[in-house]
């Protein structure tokens, strides 16, 4: 495919400003603002950090129709793994055209959403055939070559692209030789993406129009991680310099750094296992994070991340994929200075019937009434029978739209703006005949009042009857709770003595909320039981196929 960049000049520009480098350390918590200026008159998309990105499956946010993801203001950054589109060549999104083809194809708003394109789903740790020098394997019929990737990227014009990198998904642990190869390939594939585009002679456009994030490779080897980063900063010579001119160093063309925690955890687990001479087939499961992965503490990851970042400039965005809990998010903000996290764990909670219910900094919402655990759960397993007659809103930590208008709340709780807690009547009804207005006597100009929230008992019912609406409502709710959580993080960091206050609040949070996330475990069990009670035969086979291709996030259609 031809480089189409010359026919559609004008990519958007991503800038990132740290408004408050709260500490002198390159790894302290920090506040920032990402600003994406499109090549038109529209205002820049501005997103505060620490923040989160919403993950997609086959390009769409699981369980959300377009009207629902528009309604959910928490959704700002969106990550699109491209591998499912490799099933058919050319990949369909490359055919869309226009100035924001991915936004158009998937329905994301160019004014609200920053769309990131990556080859692989960062949460997918399943075993794959080895990559080649000029080819990465993906979970689809075929992989992708660096040159094909480059052409897809220029055709899709994502706001941000994650460069291909050679992360092995063969069975760990990986040899030293394999690691060396990984570094070489990742560097060379980044360089390929940084090849300048051909410009007309009189054009003063940027020959490097892409906003590129790069994976921090090197596996669990500290030295290898350092070497990779140093390679990015090296001034290139001869052919290598020619390949990316007028850039001098690879890092000059890089906008952000990415850490995928799933392969890191898998490697760490494998190392522990080989030391213990037992080797469970951890890669066979599609329901990661497994217990094994969960056993890898955040503290084991932090030195690896620091080794990568140590020599790199501090003012670039740092993205972490597949953090497993809010506790981990807080530690990575505090100890590594991470700016953006994916929401995978919170979205996955919606798949298994968990309504999140927590805040940062913590607030007193009364005793933990559903269990006798010493710490509070992060949410509610709505499959549990205790919710069958529970007519409360989804979260105790938040108000719902309707009751927030009624009276002053004693504990000054914020309103959860999601469509489950604060539903609004439709702003219009499609009219199908000239007399349909008789059904709608109320004035269309009357201000819309919040409707009562959806109750736990209703969600409980929907979950037990396999109704998809349960997951839609929970997905919107959980993203909104995560948004409020990170907004709380930013508020604390903005405090004059931000770092110190933040550290105290993190300790309190860890003390307050159950980090083992037993409520997720319970929910997963209930989810499996309800799923198992379903039919056999064709439907079951369809479901297996669906589960296979959607990484275990599938729910009953």
């Amino acid at each position, binding site marked *: 495919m031809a480089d189409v960049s010359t026919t559609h000049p004008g990519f958007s520009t991503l800038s990132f400003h740290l408004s408050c480098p709260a500490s002198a350390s390159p790894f302290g918590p920090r506040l920032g603002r990402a600003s994406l200026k499109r090549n038109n008159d529209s205002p820049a998309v501005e997103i505060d950090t620490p923040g989160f990105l919403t993950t997609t499956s*086959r390009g*769409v946010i699981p369980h959300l129709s377009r009207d629902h993801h528009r309604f959910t203001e928490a959704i700002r950054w969106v990550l699109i793994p491209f591998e499912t589109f490799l099933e058919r060549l050319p990949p369909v999104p490359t055919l869309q055209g226009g100035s924001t083809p991915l936004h158009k194809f998937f329905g994301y708003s160019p004014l609200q959403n920053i769309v990131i394109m990556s080859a692989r789903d960062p949460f997918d740790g399943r075993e794959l055939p080895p990559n080649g020098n000029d080819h990465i394997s993906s979970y689809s019929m075929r992989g992708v070559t660096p040159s094909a990737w480059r052409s897809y990227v220029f055709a899709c014009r994502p706001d941000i692209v994650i460069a291909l990198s050679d992360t092995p998904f063969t069975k760990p642990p990986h040899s030293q030789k394999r690691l060396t190869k990984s570094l070489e390939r990742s560097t060379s594939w980044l360089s390929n993406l940084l090849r300048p585009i051909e410009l007309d002679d009189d054009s003063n456009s940027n020959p490097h129009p892409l906003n590129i994030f790069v994976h921090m490779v090197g596996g669990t080897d500290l030295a290898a991680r350092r070497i990779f980063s140093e390679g990015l900063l090296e001034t290139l010579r001869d052919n290598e310099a020619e390949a990316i001119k007028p850039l001098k160093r690879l890092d000059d063309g890089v906008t952000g750094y990415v850490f995928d925690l799933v392969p890191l955890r898998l490697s760490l687990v494998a190392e522990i296992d080989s030391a213990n001479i037992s080797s469970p087939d951890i890669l066979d499961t599609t329901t990661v994070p497994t217990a094994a992965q969960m056993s890898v503490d955040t503290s084991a990851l932090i030195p690896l991340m620091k080794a990568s970042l140590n020599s790199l400039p501090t003012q670039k965005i740092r993205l972490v994929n597949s953090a497993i809990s809010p506790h981990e998010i807080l530690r990575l903000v505090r100890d590594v200075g991470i700016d953006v996290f994916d929401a995978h764990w919170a979205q996955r909670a919606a798949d298994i019937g968990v309504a999140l219910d927590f805040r940062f900094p913590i607030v007193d919402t009364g005793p933990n009434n559903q269990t006798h655990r010493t710490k509070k759960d992060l949410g509610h397993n709505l499959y549990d029978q205790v919710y069958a007659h529970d007519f409360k809103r989804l979260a105790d930590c938040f108000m719902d739209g309707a009751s927030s208008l009624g009276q002053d709340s004693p504990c000054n709780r914020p309103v959860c703006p999601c469509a489950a807690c604060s539903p609004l009547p439709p702003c219009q009804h499609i009219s199908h005949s000239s007399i349909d207005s008789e*059904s709608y006597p109320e004035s269309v100009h009357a201000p819309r009042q919040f409707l009562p929230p959806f109750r736990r008992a209703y969600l409980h019912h929907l979950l037990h*009857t396999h*109704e998809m609406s349960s997951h839609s409502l929970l997905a919107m709710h959980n993203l909104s709770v995560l948004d409020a959580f990170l907004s709380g993080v930013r508020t604390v960091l903005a405090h004059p003595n931000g770092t110190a206050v933040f550290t105290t609040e993190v300790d309190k949070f860890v003390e307050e909320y159950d980090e083992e996330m037993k409520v997720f475990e319970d929910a997963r069990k209930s989810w499996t039981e309800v799923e198992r009670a379903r039919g056999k035969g064709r439907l079951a086979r369809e479901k297996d196929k669906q589960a296979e291709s959607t990484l275990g996030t599938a729910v009953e259609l």
Partner: protein
Amino acid sequence: MQFEVIAKCHTTRARVSRMKLSHGVTMLPTFMPVATQAAIKGLTPQQVESLGVTLMLNNTYHMNLRPGIKVLDDAGGAHRFQGWTRNLLTDSGGFQLVSLSKFTKITEEGALFASPFTGEPTMLTPEESISIQHSIGADIIMQLDDVVSSLTTGPRVGEAMERSVRWLDRCIDYHERSGKKDRHNLFAIVQGGLDHDLRDICLDEMIKRKDRVAGYAIGGLSGGEEKDTFWRIMKQCADKLPEDRPRYSMGIGFAEDLLVCVALGVDMADCVFPTRTARFGVALTFSGPLNLKLAKHAKDLAPIDTQCPCPTCSDGVSRALLHHIITQETAGAHAVTQHNITFQARLMGQARDAIINGTFPDYLRSFFVAYFGDVGYPEWAVNALRSVGVDLLDGISKDVNVVPGDGGKWEYSDRS
């Protein structure tokens, strides 16, 4: 209920009416989407409402099992439980007893069945059915009828019809004694299988009770009988039912069936077809159903229907994207469900306008040209519409085949 016929087709028996219930006005004829277990699959009630739907259906059998009457009572009824502020209709639970449970035994007392959860023998009587429907709190409730498959023959059909009449009396008595007559409107269900004589007897008996029922449903059809028989029974019932009561044909959802029923004088219909078929990747259009799973849609960047006002089409969701996600992602099911419900509503809304404007016969003709012009008109539909004075073949410029049998229209393969 306030029911008023506001326009009539000059040729066919079609009519437009205003039906005012406790939760607002619904304009008829209309199609009712089915929210079996208190949700249209994948959508929130606000989304359903935004599509222009003012009346939907819950299934009593399912609602009684889960969440159960206790929860519904605590919630203050099904409207509040599911957040639906418009009109709601519940069936009696009789149909599912027969279709879902192999062990149901009908006695004069009621339907005896094994609870699907505990296996305990459970009796659903006409009184119990009405009581459950009161708890659900639907605006329109249905009598418990003795349902037999429309393919059943022999004395059982007559027995079921006669029992349905007796059970109607018990439903009416219970309903009137409950003092809830003003909020919930009881409909009778005409039975009698495919036997015109039995149907006539049933119609006579039920029409005698007209002052005590708010409307009439036509049951026992759309169960695999020949289409030619289907329309003749439907016409017989619609012809005889009183003018000043709404007429509801149960379980009808294909576009051509709906328009034929409207032409015969039917006001309401329900079916799971448009929402169920959406989940399997079939989008309904005025030129026939599209099977989005077929490879021919894989690179098509056009929406399902550029004229369609549904959220999916008006937002430009491409067939290519739908092809990529349908049956894999719930969001694909949501998108096509929103479209299909809108399609049904457009089909009926355009019928309302055509009836008011005196152009309903033209509407029928133009629908059939667009929908069946390429594959041929179903003979039964041609005959059914001739019976009410519309000849589909009149004024058709191009040659159109008339196809015998029960054929509908379906996109089976990649041949285009």
